[in-house]
């Protein structure tokens, strides 16, 4: 009797997750329906208008800003996270120094987004201004630099695990044939761990797409499509954070629609990463 009750509560708790996800999707869709029916789905995602006086809203500048900052931040993070993953997974696997490096990099993941934003604003922004990137320092470049630092831990710790999983026999075989360390990495470790590494970068990309506070503080918050790296812009997450409190009606619905789009994009990206990892693990 007690056991049956216990099993039932276990089952019900799992239904809770399904219900939660369903209500998330349902809530976002119903709330954004207004915007989609008013503008039409394709017009909404391709229009660059964002004007509360004429009630004209489009998501294109924000989609462009989100993708641009995320791609750039990924480019910035690759040399560093890749080095860290080789350092921890290949060169110094299971050594004290790799535990040290690994835990410092993991701590970076614990730093709140808003603290990264402050640091970017007060420390990195003056550097960019001095370099003459633009007058205020705000913009896509600043936001992507900080984002790049923020996603390093997500990319590096997973790919280090995949690199460490490469069988020793393969590497020893290559060494015995006279390969150097670099040749073993390039011709054995990377091809074997390749898809796993790719998946961890896809996950990091997903993180970069959804980051809110740091980007909001650094990107400049202008509702235009960024023309170059020094240009200001807005991302999907930052427009919601910026304008949610003061909006209602069609504008609120448009923000919900942007939230739904962001949700769909990150969910797809995460699904792709998880799918690749599932194949790798088999």
């Amino acid at each position, binding site marked *: 009797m007690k056991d049956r009750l216990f099993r039932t509560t276990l089952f019900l708790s799992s239904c809770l997750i399904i219900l939660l996800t369903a209500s998330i999707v349902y809530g976002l869709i119903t709330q954004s329906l207004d915007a989609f029916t008013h503008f039409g789905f394709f017009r909404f995602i391709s229009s660059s208008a964002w004007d509360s006086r004429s009630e004209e809203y489009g998501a294109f500048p924000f989609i462009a800003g989100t993708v641009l900052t995320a791609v750039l931040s990924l480019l910035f993070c690759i040399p560093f996270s890749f*080095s860290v993953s080789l*350092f921890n997974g290949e*060169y110094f696997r299971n050594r004290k120094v790799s535990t040290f490096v690994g*835990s410092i*990099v993991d701590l970076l993941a614990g*730093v709140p987004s808003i603290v990264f934003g402050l640091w970017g604003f007060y420390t990195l922004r003056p550097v960019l201004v001095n370099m003459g990137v633009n007058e205020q320092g705000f913009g896509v470049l600043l936001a992507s630099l900080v984002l790049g630092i923020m996603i390093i831990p997500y990319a590096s710790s997973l790919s280090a695990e995949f690199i460490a999983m490469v069988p020793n026999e393969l590497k020893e075989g290559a060494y015995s044939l006279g390969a150097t360390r670099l040749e073993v990495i390039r011709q054995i470790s990377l091809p074997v761990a390749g898809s796993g590494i790719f998946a961890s970068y896809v996950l990091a990309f997903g993180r970069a797409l*959804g980051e809110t506070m740091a980007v909001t503080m650094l990107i400049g918050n202008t509702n235009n499509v960024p023309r170059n790296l020094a240009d200001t812009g807005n991302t999907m*997450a930052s427009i919601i954070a910026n304008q*949610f409190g003061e909006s209602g009606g069609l504008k609120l619905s448009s923000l919900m629609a942007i939230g739904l789009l962001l949700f769909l994009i990150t969910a797809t*990206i995460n699904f792709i990463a998880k799918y690749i990892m599932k194949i790798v693990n088999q």
Partner: protein
Amino acid sequence: MKKRSIFSSSRYRLAKSRIFFYGVCTFSFITLAPLFLILWELLKKGYPQFHPGLFLRVAPTSMEAMLARISGDALPGGILNGLTGTLLILLVAILLAIPAGIWVGIYLAEKQSQPQARLVRSLSDLLQGIPSIVTGVIVYIWVVKPMSGYSALAGSVSLAIMMLPMVIRSTEESLKMLPVSLKEAGLSLGGSYTSVMLRILLPSAFSGVFTGSLLAVSRVMGETAPLLVTALGAATVSWDITHPSSSVSLLIWEFYNDPNLAPLVWSSSLLLLLIILGINLFAKSIAGKWKIQ
């Protein structure tokens, strides 16, 4: 005899390999820099403002701060309302997320490859990937609107949604690591399924669950975006979960946006970061100490 190019000489190959190794080391150590740079910056600017008043008084209004600045006084007030708000929101979030997360984790560990378990596992991964601001928007739809007002409870719900997948994952993983013989021994001694699960397996997996939950708490502690659209912020200390509430992270956002209050931004960020890093390090150290052999 064929002439061998310089590029295939072993000396060249070894040199290339060594240069690559030094490159990897250099970049790895550069990666360590941001954490220390951030800590240094916060310590340098935030330490001078560390005084007991920070913990005892609520945040000043913009007006008070401006008057103090004009007369050359130190900024009045502290972040008491933020500290109590963070405490309240986190406590309720923990009550919501951890029991539910542990329960789902047990379910997933038990029903490893059943269709529904697989679905729940994927959905939990999906939940983990939701951007924090979207979580906030969802809670706005489901909690703030029906309650017709911002509240600490809404903030807790949004943080609980973010914690849930992490608690589920760590519970499932640490239960799976236990040897099957443990469960078999318990059952063969006549223990009921419930008591074996709750009194043998769950306590054995305690360290993993505890560490995972601590990390989840530290991860959501500094969240600002979801609270911005759910808990909103408050100027006074409030222990009522149906009222809007402030949090340390919301106060940082407020200080950042108000030039008059800007000096307070450093001490509050420093405090928040130190607490979060402290929890992180604590969780890692017990994870190492309590590891089941």
